[in-house]
C-alpha cells in the first residue's frame, strides 16, 4: 500500500519552524534527522519517493490563461497559514506502518533538540482495483 506523508510548515516569520533562527547545532541535528529517516526508509525498501520542496517564495500559481497561454502569478496567497514543505511516499504493508513512519517524521528535532511534533498529513495513494 502506498501512502503520501505530507509535512506542512507554518508560513511567515517567527514561530518554531523558522529554522533560520535556530542555533547551528540544532539545525544540524534537524538536517541529520531528515537525512537518517530517508536513509532508513530506503534501506528498509519502504521509500517510494521523498522530496523537499522549494520555499513558497519561489512558488507560482498557474492557471489556463488567454489563448491557452499559461497565466503565471506569484503564489501562494499571502493569507495561507501553511505551506507544503515536503513529502514522503512510502510503500508499506499496512496503514499502521505508515502511521509509525509519520510519527517518526513528526518527532523531528527543533530548537533545543526538542521534538517539533509537526502534524503529518497521511493519505493513501489511490491504487488499481484488486485483480
Amino acid at each position, binding site marked *: 500500500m502506498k501512502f503520501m506523508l505530507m509535512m506542512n510548515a507554518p508560513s511567515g516569520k517567527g514561530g518554531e519552524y523558522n*529554522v*533560520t533562527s*535556530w*542555533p*547551528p547545532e540544532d*539545525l*544540524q541535528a534537524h*538536517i*541529520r534527522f531528515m*537525512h537518517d529517516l530517508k536513509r532508513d526508509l*530506503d534501506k528498509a525498501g519502504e521509500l517510494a519517493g521523498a*522530496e*523537499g520542496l*522549494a*520555499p513558497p*517564495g*519561489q512558488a507560482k500559481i498557474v492557471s489556463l490563461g488567454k489563448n491557452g497561454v499559461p497565466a503565471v502569478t506569484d503564489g501562494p496567497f499571502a493569507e495561507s497559514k501553511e505551506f507544503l514543505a515536503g513529502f514522503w511516499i512510502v510503500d508499506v504493508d499496512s496503514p499502521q506502518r505508515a502511521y509509525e513512519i509519520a510519527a517518526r517524521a513528526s518527532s523531528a528535532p527543533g530548537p533545543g533538540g526538542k521534538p517539533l511534533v509537526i502534524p503529518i498529513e497521511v493519505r493513501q495513494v489511490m491504487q488499481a482495483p484488486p485483480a
Partner: protein
Amino acid sequence: MATELWADWAFVSPSDVDVPAERDDALVLLFMCCHPALTPPSAIALTLRAVGGLTTAEIARAFLVPDATMAQRISRAKLTIKAAGASFSLPTDSERPERLRSVLHVLYLMFNEGYTSSSGTTLQRTDLSNEAIRLTRSLRAAAPNDAEVSGLLALMLLTDARRAARTGSVGELIPLDEQDRTLWDRETIAAGAALVSEALPMGAVGSYQLQAAIARVHSEAPSTDETDWRQIVLLYDLLMRLSDNPVVALNRAVAVAMVEGPERGLELLASLEHEARLQGSHRLEAVRGHLLERAGDRQRAVTHFLLAAEATSSEPERNYLRLKAARLTAAL
C-alpha cells in the same frame, strides 16, 4: 556494424544496442547522440544508452524516473534526430566545431549531473560522473588533436578529485574554501594537471582549458589563503573574453576579492546588480554573503546567506547556506 546501428535508428525502438567496438563508429554515434536538435537531458540519456551501453533501467535509476519514462525519452530523442535528417557519418569539416561543442557540452552536463546530485544514493550519481569521464577519454583517444577535449577531461578529473571532500556527513555541500584538502585524490589531480599542461600549448585556448587551468591552480594550493589568486584572476580575465556568462564574472569577483580585499569584490558585485540572468539567483546572494563575512560584516552576511538559502533549489546547498547563517549568528 554500421548497418546494424543504422537499422536500430530506422526502427526507432529501444533495443539492446551493442556498444560499438570500432573507434570511428563510436565517434559517429557520439556526434549523433549529442545532435544540437536534442535538449541536453535527451542527449545525455541517449548518449548513455547508445554510446555508454547503460541499460534503460540503469539510466532511469540515475535520473530517478520510472523505466517507462526514460524509455520514452530515449525513443523520442531518436525520432528527433531522424527528423533532423542526421545521417550515420562524421560531421563535415565546417560542421565539426559546432558539433564538437555540442558533444562537449553534453558530456560536461552529464558529469555535473553526477557531481552535484541532490537526491538518490551516492553510488548512482557517481556512475554518471564516471561515465562522463570514460566517454570523454574515448573521445580524446578518437580525436587527439582537439585541445578542448583534453581541457574538458582535465576539468572533470580535477573536479572529481575533490569529491570526497565535497559532501558533509548529512549530505550538505562543502564549498572549496572549507574543504579538507587531505581528502582530495592526488593521483587524479596529477593526471588532470598533466592534461592541462599538454592541452594549453596546442593552439587557441578554449573555455574548458581555462576552467581546467583554474581548477589546477586550486588543486595545487595547500589552502585557500595560499592559493595563487592573482593567477586565477588572470585566467578569469581570459575566460570573460570567451564568455558573457555572468557566473564567470561572479567567480572572478571572488578571486579579485582574495587579491584586493573584500570591498573591491563587493564593488564588482554592485556592477552585476542589474544583470538579468542573475536576478533572484542564489549565487549572487551567496557570494555577497561570503564577501561580507570576509569584510567582517557578519550581520549583513547572515541576511544575504538566508536570502540565498530561500532562492536555491538544491537541498544540499540550502542546508549549507542555512548552517552558515546559523553559525555566523551564533558568533555575533
